[in-house]
């Protein structure tokens, strides 16, 4: 083996390939000088084969011995010399490495399209070493040019990037149990999409975390998108008072008319409002009876038990079901952003999106009301999506007239995408259609097992923080190749600042330490300028313009 050829900087030899297969991964026997404790699952390694160089990931670390009796009758290793010789030779460390990609070799596709999925394994005795920064850049791309720095591989400071144009091409998911850093990751992803200009964002911001400012662990304040990318982000609010209390004047205050609610929306609220199937289905009868656009206001205006039963007779629906439906829907009357008049919130949102601005819709105090969140997100998305479909279809001749790709972020996604309702909601439609109409989703959820399987399998890229429920892990890995190995990686993530990324935006599954967010340096690395830097920039611009 031409070991002299690969003198890549910082690379350190770990051992050599001694067995394996493409399906099970290759076995690497560690050199006596490489400690098994210094290699972690998920670490990147390179394998120098005879003709190709492979890039792989450590999927298991094990202890082996050349003597089958070792475990039954271990040697006396009280002498340090004996211990030193025996460990690494008769008793050795071994790695299981999954060769993921070929990164150099005689395949012409490597030159044209970069790293290719590994379709073979390195030969016996292939030298195995830790991957260098250059290897990582070769595989994941370097920052800029559509690649966004999302974090670093474990135990390395290299910047690991996501391919943002590839990311926004499909719907994506951010998962993890609560407190594992989903919001931070999502905020980073939104910033990445924003910086790359690959798409515009519409964020249904349940906890008011993304627009103006959010809170980190221990209550420390972090800047939201509006503070970082001032002129490119518009914050809409359903609760102006709450926004103002938080020091923000919203760009637009969203109000929803009763007339905008459709019977479909009520289906989605079935679980949240605790409605029976009959009661939820009654909404369709009411819509037929009163007419679209009027049914909710008129239904809520019906007073008294008698009135309801008369209506029940007229519509052929069970009176008690109707009574229950009205009782539950009266909760909507308490939502301050709902009124009788029609509004142009959708038009306003589209106006901003068309200008390439990113819209964050804050829910203020209504974020705690799940019914309000589901209702508004569903209602606005459905109408925005309709407009996108119209415009996309009418632009079939003229590509330049196509609407800008849109990424809609929803939290508590399992409420919208449960197996029962996913097929009926607009979110289910978007998730399944990929980007046919230039609209994709970014679903943020802590309970992925609650999301419809079909939707989960359509997600292009999944970014997963720690999950500890077996069902959630299963759900996230549905339809992913090599899921058995990923499962062991996923279950061992640390509870903070670590995530497993896999899917279309990365060439191979990878565990990352999430990029830091919250310090002045982190803001600057995202392009934020403090007041002084802004002034200097302004002066420079003036100088450039007027000499």
């Amino acid at each position, binding site marked *: 083996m031409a070991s002299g050829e690969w003198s890549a900087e910082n690379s350190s030899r770990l051992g050599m390939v001694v067995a394996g297969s493409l399906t099970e991964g290759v076995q690497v026997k560690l050199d006596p000088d490489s400690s098994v404790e210094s290699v972690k699952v998920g670490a990147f390694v390179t394998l120098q084969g005879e003709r190709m160089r492979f890039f792989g990931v450590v999927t298991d670390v094990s202890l082996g011995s050349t003597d089958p009796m070792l475990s039954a009758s271990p*040697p006396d290793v009280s*002498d340090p010399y004996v211990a030193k*010789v025996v460990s690494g030779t008769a008793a050795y460390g071994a790695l299981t490495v999954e060769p993921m990609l070929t990164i150099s070799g005689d395949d012409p596709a490597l030159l044209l399209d970069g790293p290719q999925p590994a379709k073979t394994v390195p030969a016996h005795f292939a030298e195995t070493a830790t991957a260098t920064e250059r290897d990582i850049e070769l595989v994941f791309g370097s920052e800029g040019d559509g690649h966004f720095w999302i974090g670093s591989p474990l135990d390395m400071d290299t910047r690991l990037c996501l391919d943002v144009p590839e990311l926004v091409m499909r719907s994506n998911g951010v998962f993890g149990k609560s407190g594992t850093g989903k919001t931070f990751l999502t905020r980073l992803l939104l910033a990445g999409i924003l910086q790359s200009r690959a798409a515009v964002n519409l964020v249904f911001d349940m906890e008011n975390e993304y627009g103006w400012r959010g809170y980190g662990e221990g209550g420390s304040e972090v800047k939201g998108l509006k503070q970082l990318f001032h002129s490119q982000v518009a914050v809409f609010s359903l609760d102006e008072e709450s926004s103002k209390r938080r020091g923000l004047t919203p760009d637009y205050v969203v109000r929803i008319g009763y007339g905008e609610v459709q019977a479909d929306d009520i289906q989605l609220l079935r679980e949240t409002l605790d409605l029976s199937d009959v009661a939820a289905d009654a909404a369709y009868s009411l819509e037929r009876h009163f007419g679209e656009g009027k049914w909710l206001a008129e239904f809520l205006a019906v007073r008294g038990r008698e009135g309801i039963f008369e209506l029940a007779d007229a519509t052929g629906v069970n009176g008690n079901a109707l009574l229950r439906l009205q009782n539950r829907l009266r909760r909507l009357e308490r939502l301050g952003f709902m009124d009788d008049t029609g509004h142009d919130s959708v038009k306003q949102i589209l106006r901003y999106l068309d200008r390439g601005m990113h819209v964050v819709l804050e829910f203020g105090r209504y974020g705690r009301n799940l019914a309000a969140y589901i209702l508004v997100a569903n209602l606005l998305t459905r109408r925005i999506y309709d407009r996108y479909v119209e415009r996309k279809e009418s632009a079939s001749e003229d590509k330049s007239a196509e609407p800008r790709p849109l990424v809609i972020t929803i939290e508590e996604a399992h409420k919208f995408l449960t197996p029962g309702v996913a097929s009926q909601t607009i979110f289910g439609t978007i998730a399944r259609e990929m980007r046919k109409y230039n609209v994709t989703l970014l679903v943020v959820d802590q309970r992925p097992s609650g999301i419809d399987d079909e939707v989960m399998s359509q997600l292009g890229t999944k970014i997963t923080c720690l999950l500890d429920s077996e069902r959630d892990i299963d759900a996230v890995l549905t339809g992913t190749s090599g899921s058995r190995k990923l499962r062991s990686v996923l279950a061992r993530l640390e509870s903070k600042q670590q995530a497993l990324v896999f899917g279309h935006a990365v060439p191979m599954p990878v565990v990352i330490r999430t990029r830091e967010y919250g310090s002045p340096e982190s803001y600057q690395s995202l392009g934020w300028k403090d007041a002084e830097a802004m002034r200097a920039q302004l002066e420079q611009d003036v100088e450039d313009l007027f000499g």
Partner: protein
Amino acid sequence: MAIGERVGEVVEASTSRFVAQCHELYRAPPLGALVRSGSDGEAVYGVVAEVATRSLDPGRRAMAMGHSAESVEAVYERHPQLNRLMSTELEVMVVAHRSGGRMERFLAPSPPRIHDIVYVCGGAELLEVSETLEFLPSLLGSPVGSPDDVTAAFLRRVAAEHPDPERLRLEAGRELAAHLTGQLHRLTGILRRVASG
């Protein structure tokens, strides 16, 4: 014994081992010592695997004579013929040879001649032979004496001469481990003997 000292001469030889009779009773190099037969240009190197002192006449065994003597020296002084009736012999496992000035760490094509002089090796010569230790399996598989003790004794002697004994011991230990797969307790036994030097 001093390095380069003449030990004795070859009295029995094959390609894998030879027997040397010492010129002087009891004046034999220790177990595990490296010896050479032949001159510098063409030589056979071996490791002392067994040292034995016995009667020259295989039919006549030595008898106890020290009943009234104060010490063993007194016995030899009173019976000077003993030095002629007995001899000390070495059994040597061949590990390397020099051919045309070049060191090869495997068996020589032909054995040493009978009556070739045998010398004790050390210093630079010992380090040269043990530069790589690919001959360790032949020591470990020696049919003569106790191969584990011979191997350990040889490695102790190399380490004593080596500029970096720690590294030598570690490398030799790893080499042994590679040859003793599945024999962990034998390995640790040898290692402990190497370490105690």
